[in-house]
């Protein structure tokens, strides 16, 4: 597969991003007892993350810095470790997110959580909601009074973007901080990954929500909401060890159902 790389004459061009070889990072991870995929963002485990790097510099240990892989907030290559997935891995994670009955998602993403799913599933959902929401209002208007005084509402896009990106970024962060406050351990990247993949089921159900029959729409959205919420809550439950944090699990379930209802009410009224 390296022929494609060799054929690109990029080495003599200015500004090309040097290749990030992530295999080395994986093999040197064992040297660092707390592999720094656990600690994200480094600013948060603040002193620990920078402390490793500072120690590495003082001791002249290059491996520690390479194992951390964090070259600064504005360096693209420090984020490539969270996008280290292939097509088949992403497809397999999507398929497992459609299954609401088994809570083993965290075990699947243990070694290699990715933020690709979060980013592109939420972006796809934003675009799908904005476009299909407009389609749905058009169909309802045409069906009811057969006068096409409908005009494309650009606000759907803004609303969808704010709501979905806000939900996908803030809810996992809130749960992360809440669980830390309550003493249990949590990992922010894995939470983001899991919540991102949990949004996938809304994409096909949005297509089904185009059916202009109100009763059918409610059935579809309730089924989708429950499936997605049970996926989230089962995984949360399997990831926190203490069993008296049931309230957290219930809160996750309710938030996901609330998101499903919001989608139905605002975009497919």
């Amino acid at each position, binding site marked *: *597969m390296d022929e494609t790389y060799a054929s690109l004459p*990029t080495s003599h061009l200015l500004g*090309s991003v040097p*290749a990030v070889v992530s295999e080395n990072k994986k093999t040197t991870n064992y040297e660092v007892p707390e592999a720094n995929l656990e600690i994200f963002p480094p600013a948060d485990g603040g002193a620990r993350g920078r402390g490793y790097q500072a120690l590495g510099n003082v001791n002249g240990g290059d491996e520690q810095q390479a194992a951390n892989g964090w070259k600064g907030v504005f360096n693209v290559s420090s984020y490539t470790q*969270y996008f280290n997935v292939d*097509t088949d891995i992403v497809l397999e994670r999507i398929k497992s997110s459609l299954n609401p009955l088994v809570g083993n998602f965290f075990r699947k993403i243990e070694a290699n959580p990715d933020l690709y799913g979060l980013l592109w599933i939420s972006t796809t959902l934003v*675009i799908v909601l904005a476009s299909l929401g407009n389609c749905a209002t058009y169909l309802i208007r045409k069906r009811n009074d057969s006068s096409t005084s409908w*005009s494309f509402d650009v606000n759907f896009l803004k609303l969808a973007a704010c709501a979905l990106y806000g939900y996908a970024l803030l809810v996992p962060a809130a749960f992360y901080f809440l669980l830390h406050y309550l003493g249990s351990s949590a990992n922010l990247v894995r939470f983001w990954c899991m919540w991102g993949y949990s949004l996938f089921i809304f994409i096909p159900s949005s297509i089904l929500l185009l059916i202009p029959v109100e009763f059918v729409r409610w059935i579809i959205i309730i089924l989708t909401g429950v499936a997605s919420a049970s996926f989230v809550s089962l995984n949360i439950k399997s990831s926190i060890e203490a069993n008296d944090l049931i309230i957290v699990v219930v809160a996750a379930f309710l938030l996901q159902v609330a998101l499903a209802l919001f989608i139905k009410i605002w975009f497919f009224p």
Partner: protein
Amino acid sequence: MSHSHGDTVPLHPSSQSDIDEIENLINASFQSGPATVLPARPPSPPRASIPVSSSPFMASNLPPPPQQKSSSTPVPPALPPPIPQPNSHQNISVSGFGSPPNTLTEPVWDTVKRDLSRIVSNLKLVVFPNPFREDPGKALRDWDLWGPFFFIVFLGLVLSWSASVKKSEVFAVAFALLAAGAIILTLNVLLLGGHIIFFQSLSLLGYCLFPLDVGALICMLKDNVIIKVVVVCVTLAWSSWAAYPFMSSAVNPRRKALALYPVFLMYISVGFLIIAID
């Protein structure tokens, strides 16, 4: 090497004399037999003393002090007739060793024409891919951002004109979607571990918008929904087909779909905007 880090590297002392030798040879070739060997830096006075001159370089030369003129009087009688030609060529040869000639003094039309022809050639290379072309990497090396800028603004304007309400919001959404989308797509390829240069990728994604521009223009002129859907599908396929080789060769083959899907997503959303705006 103790060169200063500026745009120009100071000449090695021996190269200055090489330059002068070459200048002398050029002068000699115009004079058909050198009467005298000109000094290292030919003085400007001989040129300034000749009133007939239309070359722009003449005008920029300051009038010489009279003493130099008298000291070089043996030289001008041999030189006057051929001086306008060799001097202008001399100036070109002098400037050829330094900064590119003429870009400050050429007509504006020449500059614009040069940029336009570069846009057209990049467009032909990117949007009408020819598998048998002799230099497939040419568009990648000659990237520019004027073309993408025109295409994005044109698409925003066409969408804004077609919209019946909220015209400025439509333009803002289209422009933001395309500009931010191009940046995010490039970052996506970089994050997946691909090899791509940021501005080259922006340039290519902008040029690949050209078919959608054409489609949007046709949709603005014809208002039938069926025709719009057909036109948008055709131009969408064309845009994706144009963007496919660049994106897919930039990443690991196992991640090809991960890099291409967002491109497709962006073009579909633009296509949907084109269909839905009426």
